[in-house]
């Protein structure tokens, strides 16, 4: 049985609503007609890896207190193209800027490539959104420099970075051979809350956790909200993973991200504890950022990004393979026979 997109509600000339199920199915089939392009997919994977590297570079800037070592923007020490002497904090900040420029360029290349080769309109618009995201991210980074790292703006910069990373990972998923060519294995979801709802809840709590952590890192908030909320994250993610693995373990596209989610969650909790020890407990009187603190906090940020991306991938795969049963999607008073 094919899984098709959420049917679209339309209104005819008499003012009656009806569901165009045949339209959604034909659109889906048109999506299947997009040919798999190995080079396109590999470039999408490359972009996702590059953005992950950029997140690590950004985390190194914050952990080494180097955010303002290059005091101007968009120039670097007055120049748009000259590379300054890479010592001290400049080494981290300017390297971060150069990797970010690469990310912007590669995103534009992938967007143009997608528009020219991929027939799926929604994917084209997703790439357009990615280009807008990277532009806004660059502006946010500039505002953090010009306004001396205001905590809210710095946290928004961190949150958008991870959103952009999730977008890049999603594009890599959508351009993959398995997504394009294989007929998805489907199992209807009859439990409540649905697994899709749980994955959305997981993404939400991860975003809240990300924001609380970023506010702490940028001295806008104490550490305890982030630590307390970690328990909430653990509960929600465990619930999601248990549901996915116990009920839908036969669907590989659901099982693998669910297992990865659990593994990354455990890793992240351990890294969080280590980061707390090195930064809050032992590092309170440190005269400079020390290597154990830098490594643990950067690893914590990086694994956090992977965790969020995994939750997004799981959500996408659940939407595709574990749909909510059809009757549940339409409010009961409005149910009408679906035209064939």
């Amino acid at each position, binding site marked *: 049985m094919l899984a098709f997109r959420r049917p679209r509600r339309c209104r005819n000339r008499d003012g009656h609503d009806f569901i165009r199920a045949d339209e959604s199915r034909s659109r889906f089939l048109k999506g299947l007609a997009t040919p798999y392009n190995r080079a396109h997919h590999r470039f999408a994977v490359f972009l996702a890896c590059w953005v992950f590297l950029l997140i690590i570079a950004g985390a190194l800037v914050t952990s080494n207190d180097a955010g303002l070592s290059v005091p101007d923007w968009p120039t670097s020490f007055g120049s748009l193209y000259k590379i300054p002497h890479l010592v001290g904090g400049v080494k981290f900040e300017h390297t971060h800027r150069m990797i970010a420029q690469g990310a912007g360029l590669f995103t534009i290349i992938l967007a143009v490539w997608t528009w020219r080769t991929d027939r799926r309109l929604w994917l084209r618009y997703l790439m357009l959104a990615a280009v807008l995201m990277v532009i806004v991210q660059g502006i946010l980074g500039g505002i953090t420099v010009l306004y001396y790292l205001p905590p809210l703006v710095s946290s928004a910069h961190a949150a958008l970075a991870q959103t952009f990373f999730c977008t890049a990972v999603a594009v890599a998923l959508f351009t993959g051979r398995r997504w394009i060519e294989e007929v998805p294995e489907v199992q209807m979801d009859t439990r409540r809350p649905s697994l899709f709802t749980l994955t959305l809840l997981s993404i939400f709590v991860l975003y809240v956790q990300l924001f609380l952590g970023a506010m702490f890192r940028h001295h806008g908030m104490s550490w305890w909200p982030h630590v307390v909320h970690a328990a909430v994250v653990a509960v929600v993610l465990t619930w999601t993973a248990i549901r996915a693995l116990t009920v839908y373990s036969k669907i590989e596209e659901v099982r693998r991200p669910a297992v990865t989610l659990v593994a990354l969650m455990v890793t992240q909790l351990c890294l969080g504890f280590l980061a707390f020890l090195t930064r809050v407990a032992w590092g309170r009187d440190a*005269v400079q950022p020390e290597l154990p603190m830098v490594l643990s906090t950067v690893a914590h940020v990086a694994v956090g990004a992977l965790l969020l991306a995994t939750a997004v991938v799981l959500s996408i795969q659940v939407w595709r393979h574990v749909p909510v049963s059809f009757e549940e999607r339409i409010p009961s008073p409005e149910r009408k026979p679906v035209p064939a």
Partner: protein
Amino acid sequence: MTYRKLSIAALCLFALLLTVACSKKENTEQSENAAPAAQPATTPAATPIDPATVATVSGTVKLDGTAPKANKIDMSQDPACKGDNMAETIVASGGDLANVFVYVKDGLGDRAFDVPKDTVIIDQKGCQYHPHILGVMTGQTIDIKNDDMTTHNIHPTPASNREWNESQPPSSAPLEKNFAREEIMLPVRCNQHPWMKMYINVVKSPFYAVTDKDGKYEIKGLPPGDYTIAFVHEKLGEQTQKVTVAAKDSKTVDQTFKQ
């Protein structure tokens, strides 16, 4: 057509944000240049003090307890940094506590004081700030020098004054800055070399001092009256003492900080 409008709107927004961001920096620089010129017009006339009646307050600040071992700084991330690599958070020798800022916190009333014309100097040498604790009057010019063969980046993070952040290449001209409002323990750091920290104390009167390595301080020229003397350390906090000085008095006011 929708896509075209969206693209034009996005480009306009980007251009607008870029213009605002760049003009904010220019405005900041303009207001920074204008600040010293505006200062003389708002400063009230100094209250005269009879030099025949002034008193002196001096003393020693001690640390009760064992001084913690100074942390060693790792300067390897910049090969041009060659100097004393010990942190100056708590500097105590034989129980004498250095780097305590001592000032007259209360008792001067509405007296106004002339802003000294001579400048105070902050030197960046051996990738450390010298001095570690500085006292300066509101509006007084601070000359910031760079005697290292590497670029430093001076970034004060005040609570009551205007924040700024500037880089200073080696052998460049000194930066001239001042602070308009009173503020105690204003942190200054270098974003290039994260171990570099110092504190500037901005006060309205000339009655302040910083304890030397023997924990000693001296405040001269104080008019007779009742005062509150504050002793402030970057780590150990603030303690105060009330003192009454008569004409031509020489009072000893010692203070002890506990670990």
